[in-house]
């Protein structure tokens, strides 16, 4: 008796699943088998899946990333925003006469497992031909690996910065049109050693993969030209109290590179100030988090004088940049436009631009995605496609592009929040740092890369001074 009832319960749940599982076949989207791909690809609709994070540490970047990708479709594919909320999608996107359908705005939580589940849902269930995303490091490596197993689909990275996703995985159908986490640090080593005269430096970072990468970019360049790293300090992931790590920072160094992210950075700055009276920013540099709007709002005034770097420059007065911000404002309002210079919005924007260019090159025909992939590998972004600087890919489908050095300066706009002044452009930063990072080298970790003097990266000494605005 009891068994029969239980059976009926399980049956009911399964039936629910049956409706759901089979329903997708009826949409014509499901399956994921290779057989019907050609027919689909030859149709009038190109299905694109969007993947970002709406949960976890980067959950707040969901709408900004969607706004970036949508804006590319609005700019170049005649799309209109469906609403002021980017994740509601766009209408009327067409490229080369083919309709672009966004089959879903996938939501991961920063973990590789969830990113893959969402990728599978978008690709295998919703029938996406092309996936744009994901957002964060571990996710990027996982999606690149997934791409390798699915050569008949095409994947364009969102803003996941892990070096391995392109350098080691080397999936032929995975493309990244923005610099990785190590590339973002390019130029800082040169500036520290040659301009600021740091002969010895210490580094401090959160003890996980992304800080390893961004610190690796600094170490590789700084040591190559003669700098010495005398101490590497790692604070456990999720640390709230940095005081014991701050006291480990040696006094006999010329400078400190800080690779602490998000809310951890805010705590770090406050505690540093308490412990040492002030944040001696003239001997400090930080990774991409330093000019994050939230960080600036909370502790920006303490960071004034510090140096940071990334592929975007918030203060840029380049006409392409101002036009890009204006277009974002028209589509999604002031708040999201204000995040236009954020690497998150911009990474997805360039991904969208590259996708459209690739599709145009094959005239919208994705019946053979190999052709699309070949076209994508040759895509170069310039002008309004990449307002912060031209982008091209290397043989691993990894972006080569400019990186900016920026200084945190006193408030210029009158909102009480410190601002950013860009002062250097590092041209043509590539992923390998001139052959230093390779697929065979040990991945960045607590002790790697080691600090050795060697052939410096090609951009050392070639930085251009820039000055925007006032």
């Amino acid at each position, binding site marked *: 008796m*009891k*068994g*029969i*009832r*239980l*059976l009926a*319960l*399980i*049956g009911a*749940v*399964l039936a629910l*699943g*049956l409706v*759901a*599982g*089979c329903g*997708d*076949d009826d949409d014509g989207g*499901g*399956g*994921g088998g290779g057989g019907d791909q050609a027919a689909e690809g030859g149709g009038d609709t190109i299905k694109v899946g969007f993947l970002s994070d*709406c*949960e*976890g540490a980067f959950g707040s970047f969901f709408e900004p990333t969607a706004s970036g990708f949508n804006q590319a479709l609005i700019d170049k594919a005649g799309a209109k925003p469906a609403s002021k*909320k980017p*994740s*509601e999608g766009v209408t009327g996107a067409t490229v080369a006469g083919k309709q672009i359908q966004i089959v*879903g*705005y996938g*939501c991961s*939580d*920063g*973990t*590789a*497992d969830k990113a*893959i*589940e969402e990728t*599978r*849902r978008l690709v295998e*269930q919703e029938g996406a031909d092309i996936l744009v995303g994901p957002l964060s*490091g*571990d996710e*990027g*490596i*996982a999606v690149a*690996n*997934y791409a390798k197993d699915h050569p008949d689909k095409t994947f364009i990275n969102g803003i996941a910065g*892990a070096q391995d996703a392109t350098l*080691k*995985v080397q999936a032929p159908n995975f493309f990244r049109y923005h610099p990785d986490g190590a590339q973002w640090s390019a130029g800082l080593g040169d500036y520290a050693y040659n301009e600021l005269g740091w002969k010895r430096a210490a580094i401090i970072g959160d*003890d*996980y*993969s992304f800080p390893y990468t961004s610190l690796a970019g600094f170490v590789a360049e700084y040591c190559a030209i003669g700098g010495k790293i005398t101490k590497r300090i790692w604070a*456990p*992931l*999720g640390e709230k109290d940095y005081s014991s790590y701050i006291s480990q920072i040696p006094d006999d160094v010329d400078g400190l590179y800080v690779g602490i992210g998000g809310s951890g950075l805010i705590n770090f700055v406050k505690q540093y100030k308490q412990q040492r009276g002030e944040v001696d920013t003239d001997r400090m540099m930080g990774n991409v988090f330093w000019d994050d709007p939230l960080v600036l709002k909370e502790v920006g005034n303490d960071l004034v004088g510090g140096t940071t770097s990334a592929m975007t420059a918030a203060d840029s007065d380049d006409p392409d940049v101002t036009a890009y911000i204006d277009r974002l404002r028209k589509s999604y309002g002031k708040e999201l436009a204000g995040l236009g210079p954020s690497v998150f919005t911009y990474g997805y924007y360039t991904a969208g631009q590259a996708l459209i260019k690739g599709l145009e090159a094959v005239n919208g025909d994705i019946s053979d995605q190999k052709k699309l992939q070949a076209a994508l590998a040759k895509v170069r972004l310039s002008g309004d496609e990449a307002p912060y600087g031209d982008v091209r890919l290397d043989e691993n489908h990894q972006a080569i592009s400019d990186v900016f050095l920026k200084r945190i300066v006193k408030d210029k706009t009158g909102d009480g929040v410190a601002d950013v002044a860009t002062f250097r452009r590092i041209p043509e930063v590539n992923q390998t740092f001139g052959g230093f990072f390779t697929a065979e080298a040990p*991945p*960045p*970790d*607590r002790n790697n890369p080691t600090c050795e003097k060697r052939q410096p990266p090609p951009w050392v000494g070639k930085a251009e001074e820039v000055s925007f605005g006032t």
Partner: protein
Amino acid sequence: MTASVGRTSWPALGVVVAAAALAPLVFTDFFVSVILTKSLWLGVAAASLIFLSAYGGMVSLAQVGIYGVAGMTFANLVVADGGAAAAWSPWIATIAAIVVAVAVGLFFGVIAARSVGIYFLMITLAFSVLVYYFFSQVTQLSGFGGVNNPDLPSLVGQPGQDPAPLYYTTLVVAVLVFLGLRYVSRAPFGLALQGLRDEPARMRALGFNVTRHRILAFTLAAFIAAVAGVLSVWYNGRIAPGSINLAQTIDILIIAVIGGLYRLEGAWVGALTYALLDNYSREWTPTVGDVLGAERFNTILGVVFLIIVLLSPGGLVGLWERVRGLGGRGPGPPGEVAREPAPAEAAK
């Protein structure tokens, strides 16, 4: 036969397994993999929790930590991208992974077994958090961005291309776990476990070593969790610290509670419900202004969880039986002996 916490209905089990065996013929590859295979291995993990809870009265949050140890050990012992990549045979790595996780489970059990209630819950939660931080920080083991593409036994083929072999493997393992735990619950070890769930003081007075028994029950559950851990790596094709974080710990608890903490079947009922909700609520979640929308699907999951918990402490399985008007027996909290206060005075 004696009445106890649930009994096996062989015809019902047979029909369910037969229906499950036909699933790959009916459903899409995506559904077989992302819904069914995932439900089966999540169910095994939840079953290890439910076994401890239903028969031992111990609600453990350590199961994800233990399956993380098994998963990480497996991924490090075979050829993979990242981690130690020791290049062992996948089968030997599987056995080694289970042995290591069981040893860790035994060690955890020794520490936790003397605690009960909220203290047991907190200690076991600490174990999972400890395992998570260990693998987050020892990147030699967790790789840079996880351990990817581990070598799998040829038995399961390439789950990415054809999910059926892994599905059937997982199905067989799940059925064996279910039957095995059900059998153990009627064997001396399992009956004694239920005894110390109800009255540990009585068990001591009867000659049982209560602490040792709890440690070994925890270790047995660790074995089941370890099996789930290896299956999770086979299913995901990777494992990263994020695979075993606090959110996952809570998800397994939610699965167990949704299904019903008092019946083993609840593990798979809960896992299937969870997998369906997790996947489809993203499409079904209605948009209500800026408050609700597709990206707030977790709200739906939370509401469903809340409704089930409020309606039925016995989860879906308990709810079902209550709806049929046959509560009382079987599911629901293990029976409390009705206690009447002993008359204070001699009744002369």
